[in-house]
């Protein structure tokens, strides 16, 4: 798993308010070179969560990224020093063995052979409910997008998530 992927993963256990970013426990990290694409990196820079990336890279043993996200002039400039560092951190570091840890609950998602297992246990999955006006404001579980559509005329607030 590379850090570009890590930058989009968060803990989805029900009740967790802030499951991002996942902390990295690195047991085995490998480096694989890939082609440098500065245009892609410039485009990506605007979309990634910078602090999460810096912290994650550090956990993987790479501390070259600046703490503060650089401003536009550095990104646009012809000097590719910064972009090369971004390239290395985002695309060339692979977490092969270790774990991703939820910052709120401490729950560990194991990483084996480069693949993180983000499957939740039955009791960790969020239930979406709505308040069914026909049933005297009783919460009714929404099981599927189809349910959601069927319920939209008789329920208020279709977005309640219960712990």
């Amino acid at each position, binding site marked *: 798993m590379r850090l570009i*992927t890590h930058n989009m993963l968060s803990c989805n256990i029900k009740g967790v308010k802030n499951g991002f970013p996942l902390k990295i426990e690195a047991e085995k990290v490998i480096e694989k070179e890939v082609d440098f694409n500065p245009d892609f990196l410039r485009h990506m820079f605007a979309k990634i969560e910078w602090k999460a990336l810096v912290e994650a890279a550090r956990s993987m043993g790479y501390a070259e990224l600046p703490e503060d996200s650089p401003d536009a002039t550095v990104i646009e400039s012809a000097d590719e020093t910064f972009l090369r560092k971004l390239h290395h951190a985002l695309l060339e570091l692979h977490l092969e063995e270790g774990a991703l840890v939820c910052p709120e609950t401490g729950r560990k998602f194991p990483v084996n*052979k480069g693949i993180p297992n983000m499957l939740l246990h039955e009791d960790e999955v969020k239930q979406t409910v709505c308040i069914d006006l026909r049933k005297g404001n009783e919460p009714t579980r929404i099981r599927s997008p189809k349910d959601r559509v069927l319920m939209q005329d008789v329920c208020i607030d279709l977005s309640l998530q219960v712990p």
Partner: protein
Amino acid sequence: MKLKQLEGFLGDLQQFSNPKVELEQYPTGPHIASRMLFTAENSYGDISDKVVADFGCGCGTLSAAAALLDASCVIGFDVDPQSLETATLNAEELEVEIDFVQCDVTKLELKGQVVDTVVMNPPFGTRKKGADMEFLSAAMKVASRAVYSLHKTSTREHIKRAALRDFNAKSAEVICELRYDLPKLYKFHKRKEVDIAVDLWRFEPRQN
């Protein structure tokens, strides 16, 4: 890369050794997979230099196609560890970089706007009712450019309505109709082979 070349590479990939019927594991044939991704790239520019996610990647056929068409980053998501192992081997064989994540995409909430394009051959909902819609809903939340998906032609009106009304789609177009040839994979399959009419869809999410 030419279409025939791409189709050739995809035809060499390993597929499910022990397909699980409850997950609707059917390989995406090289004919469909190559045409799907080739169109996404050549007609819409949605693959090369983009971040591509493959939902329900199985053995990674669509992921491999995206990588071969120069996506800058490909990530495959699937619930089944055995398929992901096969997918990893396939990526190694082709010498392409693909990240794989084991998870239930319908329960996953990906942060941010990193993913440009989602490609998928989702379950049709024959085992778990509504699975096709759940996959589509999840994909539309994640993609910033486009979602490419296969759905049974018989569900065409239903899909279009749901995408535009409930899943935040700016547009929902059937790019073409394909015949999905399903070989006799499971014990309950009576015929040697069956052809299902499927639509290749392109959905564009509304920008937030």
